């Protein structure tokens, strides 16, 4: 067993887990943060995506020990004080979420994308979300949600 220290959504946590336990399972089973979903478990679908030191990663492919000392943002850390994040609000309003399994990963991939490109082109949106599969929406509503979120964030930044 290994003692793993994490900063999750701003809070310091320590867990004692097998070092090869997937970060995904540490989040869900040890920390009871079940917002992060498992889809394929092979790094193809992005349902388990989280931000690790600000970088988008698939938590199903990260052994717990490799996350030691890192700072993580999961879907539980995206909203603040009970208010949806603008990205979440836009997914809600534009129909970017249906069954919801891919949504936490989509939101975090969008956050990572908009940090990199505050005004993303359609091509940048498609590439940024290419690792996140959705079987419900057909993607168009997700792209619209991301475009709307970019607009909203830029308006907020300019205000």
């Amino acid at each position: 067993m290994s003692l793993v220290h994490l900063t999750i959504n701003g809070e310091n946590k320590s867990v004692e887990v097998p070092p090869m336990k997937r970060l995904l399972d540490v989040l869900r089973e040890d920390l009871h943060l079940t917002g992060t979903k498992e889809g394929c478990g092979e790094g193809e679908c992005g349902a388990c995506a989280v931000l690790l030191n600000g970088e988008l990663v698939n938590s199903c492919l990260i052994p717990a020990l490799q996350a030691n000392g890192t700072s993580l943002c999961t879907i539980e850390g995206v909203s603040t004080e009970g208010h949806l994040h603008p990205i979440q609000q836009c997914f809600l309003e534009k129909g970017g979420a249906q069954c919801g399994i891919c949504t936490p990963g989509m939101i975090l991939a969008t956050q990572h994308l908009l940090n990199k490109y505050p005004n993303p082109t359609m091509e940048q949106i498609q590439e940024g979300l290419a690792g996140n599969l959705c079987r419900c929406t057909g993607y168009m509503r997700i792209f619209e949600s991301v475009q709307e979120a970019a607009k909203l964030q830029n308006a907020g930044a300019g205000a």
Partner: protein
Amino acid sequence: MHSDVTQFDLAAPPSLQAVLKQLAAEPGKHAPIAGGTEMMVALGAGRLQQRSLLSIQHLRELRFIRVEDRLLHIGSGTTFTDIRRSAEIAKHLPLLVQSASWTGSVANQNRGTIGGNICNASPAADTPPALLAYGATVTLVSASGERTMRYVDFHLGYKKTALRPDELLHSIHVPLVFGDHRQYIRKVGTRNAQAISKIALAAVAKVEEQRLADVRLGAASLTDRPVRCSATEAVLSGASLASDALEETIRLARAALAGETHAIDDIRSTARYRGAVAGNLLEEFLRSLAG
């Protein structure tokens, strides 16, 4: 998950030397793990043979990009994202940037490393064709020293490399001599995003007065390992791109390529399809030089 994670051990030794010491003490017992984008899939599928893993993901000694002595040096722990963000690599090795950009998704590029891509030794891997075309060399390190070899000699067979169990791939070196070369790369997969290639071809060549010189071709999925297509290069050396000779140059090149490669049949494609498309890519490259 087909594996019980409690049956696996993982340690993160503090330095490269500490990792090499442990590999040397018990050769073959420990498997190195960098970004985990391949090893963790193997774990999930129950394909991971070693029960003990050593993380090299945190080793700063293996994560660098620098230009020195007219060579571009890339540490094996450099991620695909690092490669895509590097102004030096963009300037000198555009084919490598292109191949890094189509390796998996952004999340995988943030973790996966060029060293892992090479050492996993899949014949379909994305960065080897570019590195082969660029004539890269690689440095392998162990507790007892280091050795540098031509990258083309590193791949010995299907998933077989020259790496000894006590060695790690340390770095990759590419000579900065391609400023005047025309460069080409194309991957053909089932779809654009994070597909594994059915076939990929990287090519560089100089064109002097409508004649080809210094042609270098690297390919994926054309045989059991990433390959350099030397016989085709030889046929193309000095070949003419003039309008009255181009068709013959293309015909000879396609024949040479078909003669020296043995495309593979697998779940992603057939040997016949791969052979035909490889010829088409080569032809596309040659026509782009003539046009």
